[in-house]
């Protein structure tokens, strides 16, 4: 297993004040913002660090862009067997969504602010479009199943209180968070937003991006399987034939599977 330590640079230029705060000092330091899916990839580690005003709470949100997602629904057929019985389309929901904070988000951030900045599963649920649905009860049930599916796939996560802060001086503090980056997260560009929270309101926010891409043999094989399928199939067969002949020659006795 090879882990990449990823730190995110949120430069001064990308910082902008929100909610009328004029003395914001939210900053971050980082090494790089690229995760490569290579042959030995088994996920990575993502870390965000920086400086903020003393006394503020911090919320870090990492998401992929909203996308259309189609999922099969399972149901009981004939009262006995579970099988796929239909398909639901989910709109206005990110494929990846992770929230990290210094304290329980419900305690530090007003509901109206969470709504405004898209922070929390309940906010996502109100924004989401799910179809086809028979009624509103179905909507709650299938959104809850959607969250379960995403959490099980390690694509949605809201771990508690993992952003830590340390006072630097009377006016500023440093913050840090570190979390696993799941191997299930597909290639793409992910948005990182850090919110500084004071008195239940977002005082300021900063943005950065994480790029996840396939490289090397993984990219070559993945591209070939999709775009050059005949060649890919022939190479797979040739490799198996060679392996079979090779082992047959080495053992030089009858045997083998059939």
């Amino acid at each position, binding site marked *: *297993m090879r882990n990449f330590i990823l730190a995110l640079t949120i430069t001064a230029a990308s910082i902008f004040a929100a909610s009328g705060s004029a003395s914001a000092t939210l900053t971050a330091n980082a090494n790089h913002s690229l995760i490569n*899916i*290579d*042959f*030995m*990839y*088994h*996920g990575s580690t993502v870390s965000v660090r920086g400086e903020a005003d003393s006394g503020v709470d911090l919320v870090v949100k990492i998401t992929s862009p909203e996308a259309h997602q*189609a*999922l*099969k*629904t*399972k149901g009981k057929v004939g009262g*006995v*067997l*579970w*099988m*796929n019985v239909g*398909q*639901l389309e989910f709109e206005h929901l990110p494929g990846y969504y992770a929230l990290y904070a210094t304290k329980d988000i419900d305690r530090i951030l007003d509901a109206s602010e969470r709504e405004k900045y898209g922070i929390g599963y309940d906010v996502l649920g109100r924004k989401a479009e799910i179809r086809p649905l028979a009624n509103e009860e179905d909507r709650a049930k*299938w959104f809850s*199943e959607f969250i*379960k*599916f995403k959490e*099980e796939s390690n694509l949605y996560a809201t771990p508690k209180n993992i952003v830590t802060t340390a006072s630097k001086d009377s006016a500023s503090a440093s913050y840090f968070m570190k979390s696993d980056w799941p*191997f299930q997260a*597909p290639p793409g560009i992910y948005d990182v937003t850090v919110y500084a929270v004071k008195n239940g309101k977002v005082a300021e926010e900063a943005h950065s991006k994480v790029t996840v891409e*396939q490289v090397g*043999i*993984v*990219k070559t*094989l*993945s591209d070939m*399987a*999709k775009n050059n*399928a*005949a060649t*890919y*199939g*022939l*190479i*797979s*067969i040739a*490799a*198996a*034939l060679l*392996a*079979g*002949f090779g*082992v*047959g*020659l*080495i*053992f030089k*006795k*009858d*045997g*083998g*599977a*059939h």
Partner: protein
Amino acid sequence: MYLYLPVALTSVNIFLPVGLGLAVGLLSGLFGVGGGFLMTPLLIMLGIPSAVAAATDSNQIVAASTSGAFAHWRMGNIDFKMGIYLLVGGFIGGLVGVEAVKALRAMGNIDFVIKMTYVLMLGGVGAYMFIESFQNLRNKDAAKPVERKADAPKSGFLASLPFQTHFEKSGVTHSALLPVIVGGLVGILAAIMGVGGGFLMVPVMVYMLRMPMHVVVGTSLFQVLFTCIEVTFLQAWSNHTVDFILAVLLLLGSTIGAQVGSVFGRKLKGEQLKILLSIIVLAVTVKIVFDLVLTPGLLLAQAGGH
């Protein structure tokens, strides 16, 4: 040590597929049956999507059956004429099977169909083997092997089929349609289940085509090899579900395991081994049945696969 699988889009501990290949290869070498029917469900249990598991298993069976067919060819144990008729059917069956997989994937029912096919085939074969071996163990005198006579009288229906032809190597006469139809059915199963079909082909050749046992094994391997080559190509070309890296890991284990198993197999008692295999087969069947009957942890699943 983990490797990322570019088509299955998942990361696996390298020792799991190699160990799985080794274990299934060992079983196939020990018992003289194909490992495919065990490999695909075990891959699914490892978290590999069903369609990728079945297609990739076909790819690794190419390696295992090449090794075995090569050995039997050197011993003159392959009835090429019968093998080619079986292949004609197998190719047509493979085409039909891959198209069926495509249609079922679009409908979202592929997992269900693969699992139900396994339940029926494994349950039937496992129960038959268990009962037969158990009876033989209880009544050893009754378990004397009976040498099958070539060209023994056939039923009226088989004799009445057109295009009767003599298969010299096997010493039998049949309608050419018979091996074509049998090969076709096995080809369909090979595509859906990701198996070579050896575990179905062998009893069919012995009991229906009445071929001598030594020719059955070599000819079955020959047919399975070419059927799996076709299925692998079609799955890669049409469904993009063959994971090359996973296949290499599996065949690393299975080709060596099969050879080691065939060495041990000669030293161990047959009926006990058969009972052990039938218990393994039935255990896999029970696991699949539980998956179908018990309420799943998640009511949503990825649509369309890869």
